[in-house]
């Protein structure tokens, strides 16, 4: 019986083709937006989660509070070399290394550019830093102890995206007035900041960028590796306590943050989810408008088919039959809108992925279509359709056969 009602619904929708198309536009746009955004959001989440997974769960990241990665050049630095031994002394910590990230003035082939310069430690923590930032060498060699004015370039610089022209190993460029020789190139990491950066020895970086800062040398971030079998959350709490004590800071007022990789993923996801929520909120408006459109169409359909409703009642349709017929019809309208919306949304996110890869050279934007997104979007569209048709369908169901038969 339900199958017949579906057939009837599709036939009726086909009968008023133009109006049906117009009706579902709102749903199409809304669902397309939701699918595109969720698939890209899920894709980004997946990429980031994979990245963090590569980084490993045995690391704890200490950063200045608020500033995410890059600290301002003014004032006293929040994190310095002074913190390294304090962190190293915490129980459960195997080793700790710092990294310096600065925006540097680069001169290459007589043109001036600004990009991120990474100060990589060349002591026994070099490997820890490289692991954390997924630095893998594809050409040339890594920086090694004893290097002073040697540099390693990242993917975008090698490809000529950052410095106007491609840069090759053996070439020279100037950072903050000092000439460097390129000795290696790293594989694309997927992190846009990292992929446009130049890596130099940390000591050289400190000379170039923080020589005038009083006191200890600045660190933009400190990475601690924990001993196998230690609980990252417990060690992170111990590090926080130790640093707080050293700085004489009250709990809750720290000027630094200590995060495990799991927490990093979580905090990243919070940001991503918040962004998604905002955009999906906008899509929801479109879906709401689409729903109102379906309601309007269904009211018109009920009015136009008043006589038909009367006939169906005369030949034995119960109120519940009429209710189902109209509910299914509005649900199918939603479903069709949803299906088209999903296709458009999938196309849209694939286009964005393509643009990201081709023009922005980022692998971060990846469309990802889990089955539950497709099924969920279809079901959601059907439910929106049915909900929008509920009032018109009830009106149809409650019509008196005598009156509706007489209706012209």
């Amino acid at each position, binding site marked *: 019986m339900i199958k017949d009602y579906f057939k009837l619904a599709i036939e009726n929708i086909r009968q008023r083709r133009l109006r049906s198309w117009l009706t579902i536009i709102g749903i199409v746009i809304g669902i397309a937006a939701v699918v595109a955004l969720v698939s890209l959001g899920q894709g980004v989440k997946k990429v980031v989660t994979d990245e963090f997974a590569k980084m490993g769960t045995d690391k704890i990241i200490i950063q200045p509070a608020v500033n995410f990665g890059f600290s301002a050049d003014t004032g006293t630095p929040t994190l310095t070399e002074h913190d390294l031994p304090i962190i190293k002394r915490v129980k459960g910590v195997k080793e700790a290394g710092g990294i310096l990230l600065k925006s540097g003035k680069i001169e290459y082939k007589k043109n001036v550019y600004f990009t991120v310069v990474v100060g990589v430690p060349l002591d026994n923590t070099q490997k820890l830093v490289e692991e954390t930032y997924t630095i893998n060498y594809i050409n040339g060699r890594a920086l090694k102890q004893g290097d002073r004015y040697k540099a390693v370039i990242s993917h975008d610089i090698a490809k000529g995206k950052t410095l106007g022209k491609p840069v090759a190993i053996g070439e020279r460029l100037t950072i903050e007035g000092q000439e460097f020789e390129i000795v290696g190139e790293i594989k694309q990491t997927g992190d846009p900041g990292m992929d446009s950066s130049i890596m130099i020895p940390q000591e050289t970086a400190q000379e170039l960028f923080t020589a005038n800062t009083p006191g200890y040398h600045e660190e933009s971030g400190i990475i601690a590796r924990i001993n196998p079998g230690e609980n990252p959350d417990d060690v992170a709490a111990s590090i926080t306590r130790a640093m707080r004590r050293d700085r004489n800071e009250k709990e809750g007022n720290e000027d630094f943050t200590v995060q495990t990789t799991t927490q990093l993923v979580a905090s990243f996801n919070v940001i991503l989810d918040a962004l998604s929520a905002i955009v999906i909120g906008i899509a929801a408006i479109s879906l709401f408008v689409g729903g109102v459109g379906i309601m309007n169409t269904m009211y018109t359909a009920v009015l136009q088919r008043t006589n*038909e409703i009367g006939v169906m009642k*005369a030949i034995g*349709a119960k109120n519940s*039959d009429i209710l189902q017929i109209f509910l299914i019809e509005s649900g199918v309208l939603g479903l069709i809108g949803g299906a088209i919306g999903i296709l458009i949304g999938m196309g849209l996110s694939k286009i964005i992925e393509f643009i990201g890869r081709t023009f922005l050279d980022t692998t971060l934007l990846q469309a990802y279509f889990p089955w539950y997104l497709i099924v969920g979007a279809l079901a959601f569209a059907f439910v929106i359709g049915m909900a929008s048709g509920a009032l018109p369908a009830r009106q149809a169901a409650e019509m008196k*056969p005598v009156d509706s038969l007489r209706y012209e």
Partner: protein
Amino acid sequence: MNSKDDKEKDKPIIELKDVWKIYQIGEVKVEALRGINIKVFKGEFVAIQGPSGSGKSTAMNMVGCLDIPTKGHIYLHGRDISHLSESDLAQIRGKKIGFIFQKFNLINTLTAKENVMLPLTFLDIPESIRRERAEELLTLVELSNRMDHKPNELSGGQQQRVAIARALSVNPDIILADEPTGNLDSKSGSSVMGFLQDLHQKGKTIIMVTHDDKLAQYAERIEVLKDGEIIQTVKGSKHHTKNEHNIVVNKK
């Protein structure tokens, strides 16, 4: 002249007993039916005939279980249906009554066959049986080559024959025809009446509502309605070829 058919000893299929229908329109009360009594027995062909405004449409609604009376009782197979809910009435209509309307009232989005299948759909009968039944009935009304056509691809006469097939689909106790030839030319009209007479010959109970006294003559018995009352019951002249002609008088 006012002869009641007493030959049937059985209980009537449907009986209207002192049925009143009063509509409240604004402050005015309109008495559409004023205590009518009609009995229809199995196998009868009865016409309810009257001019417009006589209450015949209201009477049809009562006989067709489309509406319930303000006062009085309607018995279907001896069961009082005058106070049933719309859903119960719908089920009774679906099983017991086959409707034929003046304007055919086929569902335009469905093919002839699907239209005939529809009443069976509401009874939740399996599709294969529905299909078989619809094909059989459309063949009976000589539309076997038109089964997959939609109503707008059929002539008026053909549409009305589809409607007859639809009315027969549930094998109802009563065929209720409301001005069945009202929208047809005389040729199609007489073809439709031919089918109704055939059905009657085969034992179907037929109740026809019409304003047309000539059409009413096809019936065995004519209940003449005026101002909400039955003013006369006469025999139809065209019903049996050998029957004598009864003159229908509009006034008592």
